[in-house]
């Protein structure tokens, strides 16, 4: 198991490097004149050039990339092109808000999606199942920004129940969290339904029923435990979808998170800020995916055996071969 964990941890490094290279390469394609933006239209061309030179913009691509990565290792994302503030500070102040909303949303999606999915799998082809699956599909396809706007229109403008900006009270969390979770709830329902159905069709369920096990214990003790394994694998993917969704949710509800940062840096042409935010979000999604994979390896006995007992199995196989010879 430890070897597996170590292997996966080491694997993080090239992936994150790849992500930084991807983002950095894309951003270097973008035409931009930070000196002009920073110093204003009245500055002389020499001053602008000197400013750009000081940012190292005239160096060849790989030198700039190398310097950027060197900064990243020291957790330094550089300076914003607009206003020259440190990207780090910005990210540090914005990250907690985004993570909070994302994690809550993931939890909400899981605890609402899972029971609904199981219910609709157990009652397959019933009216409830049909209605629930279609609702889940609609939820999975709903544009996040639209849902958030509609929710704000209803609950804030019409009913005055919930505040539509910031994250100051617990009430303020309700709309952003549900808005972020909406797509994932739909996906979780669909995923848990299909994996539950897969399990319910397997032989061991028939065996359990034949032995006279009660329906409740067949569903919860046998089918659910196995279908949970495949549902956990989707957690990682879902988290990365949530991270993408926060860009819009934060924008609608004026939450000062990374999403708002990204939107602002798009309109300001602020390349270091944008790449910093994207790299941070990508890194988090990679880490969460890794954790989910490890959890999966731990939960699934088949996979666990593959890594835990590898030596023993190899030894046994060798002995068997020797015996045969």
């Amino acid at each position, binding site marked *: 198991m430890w070897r597996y964990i170590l292997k996966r941890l080491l694997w993080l490094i090239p992936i994150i490097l*790849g992500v930084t290279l991807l983002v950095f390469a894309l951003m270097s394609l973008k035409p931009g004149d930070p000196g002009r933006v920073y110093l204003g239209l009245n500055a002389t061309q020499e001053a602008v050039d000197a400013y750009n030179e000081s940012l190292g913009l005239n160096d060849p691509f790989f030198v700039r990339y190398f310097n950027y990565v060197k900064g990243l290792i020291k957790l330094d994302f550089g300076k914003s092109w607009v206003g020259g503030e440190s990207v780090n500070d910005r990210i540090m102040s914005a990250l907690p808000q985004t993570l909070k909303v994302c994690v809550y949303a993931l939890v909400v999606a899981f605890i609402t999606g899972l029971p609904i999915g199981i219910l609709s799998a157990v009652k397959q082809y019933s009216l409830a199942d049909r209605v629930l699956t279609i609702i889940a599909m609609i939820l999975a396809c709903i544009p996040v920004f639209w849902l958030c706007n509609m929710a704000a229109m209803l609950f804030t403008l019409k009913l005055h129940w919930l505040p539509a900006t910031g994250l100051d009270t617990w009430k303020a969390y309700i709309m952003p969290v549900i808005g972020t979770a909406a797509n994932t709830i739909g996906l979780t329902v669909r995923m848990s339904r299909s994996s539950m159905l897969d399990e319910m069709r397997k032989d061991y369920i028939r065996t359990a029923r034949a032995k006279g096990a009660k329906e409740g214990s067949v569903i919860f003790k046998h089918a659910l435990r196995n279908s949970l394994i495949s549902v956990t694998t989707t957690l990682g993917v879902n988290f990365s979808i949530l991270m993408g969704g926060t860009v819009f949710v934060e924008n609608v509800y004026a939450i000062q998170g990374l999403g708002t940062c990204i939107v602002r840096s*798009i309109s300001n042409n602020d390349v270091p800020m944008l790449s910093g935010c994207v790299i941070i979000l990508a890194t988090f999604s990679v880490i969460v*995916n890794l954790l989910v994979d490890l959890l999966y390896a731990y939960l699934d006995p088949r996979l666990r055996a593959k890594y835990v007992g590898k030596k023993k199995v190899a030894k046994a196989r060798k002995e068997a071969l020797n015996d045969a010879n």
Partner: protein
Amino acid sequence: MQTKAKTKKQKNHGAAYDIWRSLRSNKVAVVSMVIIGIFVLISILADVLFDYETQVIAQDIMNDLQSPSKEHWFGTDSLGRDYFARMLYATRITLIISFSSVFIATALSIVIGGISAYFGGIVDTIIMRILDVFLAVPSTLLIICIVVALGNETVYIILALVVYLLPSLVRTVRSELMINMENEYVEAARSVGAGPFRIMLIHLLPNSFGAIMVRCTMSFALCILSTACIGYLGIGVRAPAPEWGRMLSEAQEYMRLHPYLITIPGFFIMIASTAFNLLGDALQDAMDPRLRGYRKMKKKVFARRKK
């Protein structure tokens, strides 16, 4: 030859017909196909119904923000443009972008996935690891980055969507092909001396076609959503051209007094992407012979019980 033709006729007219029949008996699939048909029809007829220059992008400030009426079915937007005409043209733009990106992405993924599955080994590893990097960036952010970097020409939006779709499509193609490579007929073909291209095109692809089609249909939904997403952020299709996401973000300002301006585009996005996803689901069910039998069996059992 004659006997061969005869047996073919008796044998259910081939797999495609089976799938079509199964789709036709599925109500959800029929509804979603009708909806998609309507969207396609809309985007073809947009030209006939409204003139782009005078009715869709020409501003008419005197008639701004009118409520829905006989003349303007969905009212007018803040610049006095007919919202209905803009919605129709937006449908067309979205469908064109989605179709071209799905088409290009599928073609590319078949090539890349094919190479990866057929050659295996180091080639496969390199391709898959590169795709892992693309998968690591949350998809919305990847699209945003590409469009921001290259600019919001339609070509670049399509490129961004292709890059976004490619990793998952390649994975599907690859795993499908790998499963099918295990079959004896590949071995047989190879032993007769068929080259990689022949095996790929004639033996493997037709057998993997179903799964790829399912992914394609679902990719359409993703494309529609993503196009709307970047449109909403203002980096989508260029300004005077109508686009669902951009129309929605422009309507945000007026949502207090004119809620329909924001409701309509969102509704269109939702319906379109749901329809494609439901069709993909139904296709998947139809492709799965196991499930097809299951459903039929279930029906039979029900019928017997009713008697």
